[in-house]
């Protein structure tokens, strides 16, 4: 499940105190990573980003077009709309901008987090994030 459950736990624990911004950084040498990013954003358009995110991680590496459409069906999405978005790469502009941002910031590893500017690379336990977030919340109050 990757770091998804930890991120959700963070969001629940710090409800109203923390804002999550997700940037896409599909791995350049994996042929299906771009289309998987498109699928996640197409699902977001229909309000099911996290559901698709978790499914993509669970099913990886079965992430070709047919698989993604099947997952959209599984999640009860409007498949016609989803497929059109996938085929036209309707979020390619956003994904490319995200990738450029990552390269400009000299980032190469996923997941990478920035918590008020503090960089954390890799999946880490909730307690690890908690310590940083608590420190940053404390700093923000001062």
């Amino acid at each position, binding site marked *: 499940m990757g770091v998804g459950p930890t991120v959700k736990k963070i969001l629940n624990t710090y409800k109203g105190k923390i804002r999550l911004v997700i940037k896409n950084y599909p791995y350049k040498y994996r042929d299906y990573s771009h289309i998987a990013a498109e699928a996640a954003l197409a699902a977001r358009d229909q309000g099911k980003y996290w559901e698709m995110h978790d499914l993509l991680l669970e099913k990886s590496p079965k992430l070709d077009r047919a698989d993604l459409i099947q997952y959209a069906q599984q999640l009860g999405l409007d498949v016609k709309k989803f497929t059109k978005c996938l085929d036209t790469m309707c979020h390619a502009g956003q994904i490319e901008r995200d990738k450029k941002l990552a390269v400009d910031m000299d980032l*190469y590893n996923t997941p990478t987090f920035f918590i008020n500017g503090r960089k954390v*690379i890799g999946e880490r336990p909730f307690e690890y994030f908690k310590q940083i977030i608590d420190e940053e919340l404390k700093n923000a109050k001062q």
Partner: protein
Amino acid sequence: MPNNEQARSTSRKVREDRAEIKMKVRMIFSLRPLHLCTAPGFLIALLIFLFVPTLSVLAGDLEPITAVPVPADNPQTPEKIELGKKLFFDRRLSGDGTMSCVTCHDPEMAFTDGLAISLSYPTTKNWRNAPTLINVAFQKYLFHDGRARSLEEQVLFPMMSAFEMNRNLDFMEEVIRSVPEYVEEFKRVFGDGDTTRQRIAMAIAAFERTLISKNAPLDRYLRGDKTALSTVAKKGLEIFTGKGKCAECHYGVNLSDDKFYALYVPENPEQQEDPRIGATRRYVAKVYHYEDYRNLTEDPGRYLITKDKKDWKAFKTPTLREIAKTGPYMHNGMLKTLDEVIEFFDRGGGKGNTALKPLGLSEEEKRQLKVFLTEALTGEPIVIQYPKLP
């Protein structure tokens, strides 16, 4: 100047004092200060030792002062260290350009990555914890399983490892050769511009030999500064060298005996649950000619290297220098905190091990030991200026 008789008498007194001091110090400490002095420092320290023996009681187990060990065939030069630093930070050393040595040995995390199981090449998973590089120059064996005997040998392993940097070394040499600034630097350092893997390793090893824990309170204490340790830390030191039995393996300059022990740290469940780690385990076992690699479900440790039964699940005694900053601990990161480490040793290690016995430390003694480990073994911050890469 004393006359001959006085000199002989003084000399005999010094020898007696010295013998007594050394005996006491060995009994009390079994540790040595971290000596990083240059030749003039050695002379000064020696003079103090000879003529002010009372100071020696405070100075600990004084022995000939040693500098950082450097192999004769790879002398340190500022140019080589600088080249090594650049290569250490350079992602060209990985197959897909996403990994450098820094990825897992981050200067801001005491040259670890702070993870139980280290970061890995994209789409793969590592299977062990990234050890700190601080004081790596003092280690006789490198890696948790001790498969390398020199830094020059060690450096190339992660580069060619399929689950770390995944770089073909022949190709890496040509990639580095295609960068004119590097060719010029190789000329300056090695006499010509040949960017061989051996030279790349030599330069990185030279840089790594500069990553030294300096002026930790323990060093100051052993050199004679009684105030360097707090009262609690001093009690922790007594436990470290006494009831806690830590110093039976963690001694010397680097607080390690450079030996291997099977403490039976529990397997990391992540290693069992993640099929990618299973693939890594089987791959490494196959590379090391472990016959039944397909059915291997645990980490055999040094056995993979020696095929000696006594080395089954044995791992190297790590340095304890900078221990407060280098968690999670053990070869698979199963012990998250120093409290967990102390508990592990207090109960006599993992199930089935014969290397350790329960210690019976009180809660107060555990606390004192932790204070010693965190307070006494943390040196000055190692500040690394990030290099400008060509």
